[in-house]
């Protein structure tokens, strides 16, 4: 006996509890199974690239804060690195180290957000893992407040270094964080990754193969979860990354579980990097003398960095004026959505939410 059923089209988003901001999916369901899915983006488009063309180079830093608002530090970093290449200036060593510390702290914070939402998306009480993660993230944000007076929209880095040296109270706080964080990471491991329900829900779901990932130019934890050891921090070191030792984390499965697992392991590596920077940092200037206003000679620059979500870079074209002629943002979140359909079709309603979360994208960066 067969019953005639019709597929149902459901709009998930743009205001849905777990679509990471104003993201919308038009999903065709056959019962609980996903037959077709179509992403609709653009609800958060603010025209950052165009805005950047109308602002001086130093003013654009404040715009980059608002791209991936979960990881503002790395946005700053990517932008100022491109600018520095454009006007060809050197950053003092202490500035480089401070940037590295700030960027790695931001990576920890961003991954904590990603992992924290993991359990909520799986349908646990939306506060347990999230609160634990946010509790630790709060300490990082507190350190950012010590560094630069803001928690989210940091504007910490400047072209030629960082805006100011770290205050004295920062170092004990960092030390305390470095000492205590591994214990909390262990707690999260126990709460999330060792739980059988989590494993049953996420292992072998929405698998991205290494070839697929490379073809779609995915980067960051998503690519590494598919078993490709590509990390720009190791491959093309910038700032102080050539001075530190760390492992490029990879996993073989390429499934939802591995994507989060890689993030959790990267937190450990980040702590390792911060530890080395904390040990090696020497006193000195933090910023080369650059005016806020400058006119680079005509040319172009692109410096990719390893943002928490993948390769982030600002392609800047100068026509000799005080503002960039073109500012193209290569945002990892947007490119992560490339394999969206391949990942979700054929899975269940409950899976697509988790798969979406495993991409850990940020609408501020997708729509720009």
């Amino acid at each position, binding site marked *: 006996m067969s019953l005639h059923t019709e597929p149902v089209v459901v709009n998930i988003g743009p205001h849905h509890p777990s679509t990471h901001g104003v993201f919308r999916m038009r999903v065709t369901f056959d019962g609980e199974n996903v037959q077709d899915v179509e992403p609709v983006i653009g609800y958060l488009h603010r025209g950052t690239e165009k805005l950047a063309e109308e602002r001086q180079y130093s003013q654009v830093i404040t715009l980059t804060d608002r791209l991936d608002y979960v990881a503002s530090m790395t946005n700053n970093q990517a932008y100022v690195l491109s600018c520095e290449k454009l006007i060809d200036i050197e950053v003092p060593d202490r500035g480089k180290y401070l940037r590295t510390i700030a960027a790695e702290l931001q990576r920890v914070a961003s991954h904590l957000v990603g992992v924290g939402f993991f359990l909520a998306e799986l349908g646990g*009480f939306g506060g347990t893992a999230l609160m634990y993660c946010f509790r630790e993230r709060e300490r990082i944000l507190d350190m950012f407040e010590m560094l630069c007076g803001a928690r989210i929209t940091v504007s910490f880095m400047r072209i030629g270094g960082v805006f100011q040296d770290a205050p004295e109270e920062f170092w004990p706080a960092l030390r305390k964080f470095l000492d205590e964080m591994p214990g909390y990471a262990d707690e999260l491991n126990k709460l999330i990754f060792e739980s059988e329900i989590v494993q*049953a829900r996420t292992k072998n779901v929405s698998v991205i193969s290494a070839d697929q990932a490379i073809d779609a130019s995915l980067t960051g934890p998503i690519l590494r979860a598919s078993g490709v050891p590509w990390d720009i921090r190791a491959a093309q070191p910038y700032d102080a990354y050539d001075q530190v030792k760390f492992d490029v984390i990879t996993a073989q499965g390429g499934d939802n579980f591995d994507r989060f697992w890689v993030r959790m392991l990267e937190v450990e590596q980040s702590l390792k990097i911060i530890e080395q920077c904390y040990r090696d940092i020497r006193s000195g200037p933090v910023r080369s003398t650059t005016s806020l206003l400058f006119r680079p000679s005509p040319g172009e620059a692109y410096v990719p960095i390893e943002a928490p979500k993948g390769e982030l870079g600002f392609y800047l074209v100068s026509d000799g004026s005080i503002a960039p002629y073109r500012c193209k943002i290569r945002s990892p979140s947007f490119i992560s959505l490339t394999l969206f359909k391949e990942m979700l079709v054929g899975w269940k309603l*409950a899976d697509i939410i988790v798969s979406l979360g495993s991409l850990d994208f940020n609408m501020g960066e997708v729509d720009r």
Partner: protein
Amino acid sequence: MGEALAENIVYRHVYEFILSVFGSELAWLAYAIATFSVVLLVVNVLMLLATFYTWAERRLLGRFTNRLGPNRAGPFGLLQALADAVKLLTKEDIVPRSADRWVFNIAPIVMLGSVLMAMGVIPLGEKTFLADLNIGLLYLVAVSGLGSIAVLMAGYASANKFSTFGAMRAAAVLISYEIPLVMSLLSITILAGSMSLIEVVNSQTIPFLLVTPLAAFIFLTAMSAELNRSPFDITEGESEIVAGYLTEYSGMKFGTFMLAEFAALMVAGAVFAVLFLQGWKWAILPSHIWMLLKVGLFALLATWVRSTLPRLRPDQILTFAWKFLFPLSLINVIALSVQRLLLADEFGNLQQQDMWLMVVSNWILMVVAVPVLIKITNRKSGIPFGESAKFHVGKGV
């Protein structure tokens, strides 16, 4: 109702008071008023417990997640439930235009009704119960099934796709988990030799939690599925289908649903206490206090589970029910039947030492049966929830 209720202290006093005022020719009125007052008392106690528990659960969840929870309204936030009720009552009551009005409006009442009806047979303490039905357990099963019908009604009537998803999931869970639930109640019947809840309590010389741990485990699992509690809360899985069948509800209709859900949890706790924890019986403290403590223990456990475990996928929940819980409950029923056949004396009664023998054998059974069954259920990964599998999607949908 008659005889058992007549022993109740409230009933007797009201009855005698009215008789003394109006004289014995109005005995029917005294009977009606006395009965009604007892019913009112029980219902209100349940509602109070449920509203109190909404506060308690939020406080507990707060502590589990390293927060404080609501602590502003009144001392320790105790009046939070009142504040919530006021808020819900003053909210606009929206019925979607394409909704099935009648069904939409009736659904919360049916839901609450099913919970209140279940209270009819549950003894809340020594000589504190409304009715001693000799088919109490059957009645419970029948009445609790009604709640899922209400969910189905709400989901269907809302004319919302998310609601429909929730309703369909609720129906699937109802069908699957009713069977293990009934099986576990059946094993209690085998042990107690009666379906009356009073008899069940009286026959528990040893708590049945010890005698038949498997039945307790199955009961807890199936009950949390029936109650939409974590990890089986797919019916209103907020991260997937917004709020499931509740998506279109607002105001006090929503409040009624929530109240009914929390009351259902209280009722489930009471049933668990009656079936497995010797009900009101224990030493020193008055029977009602013991009952409250046992219900509280159940609620604490439910909150703890909710704060810790993520949700299973609907297909995994069904796999778990049919491939794991159902065979497990069958094993349990068969084992208990055999034990009873072997151990009972010529009058069909179980002695205390026989009970202890059953305790030992059933714990051994649990330790052996569960891992073996997990292995059989899923040879590949040893997970009783089933594997994740991609569905083949045909072309030209």
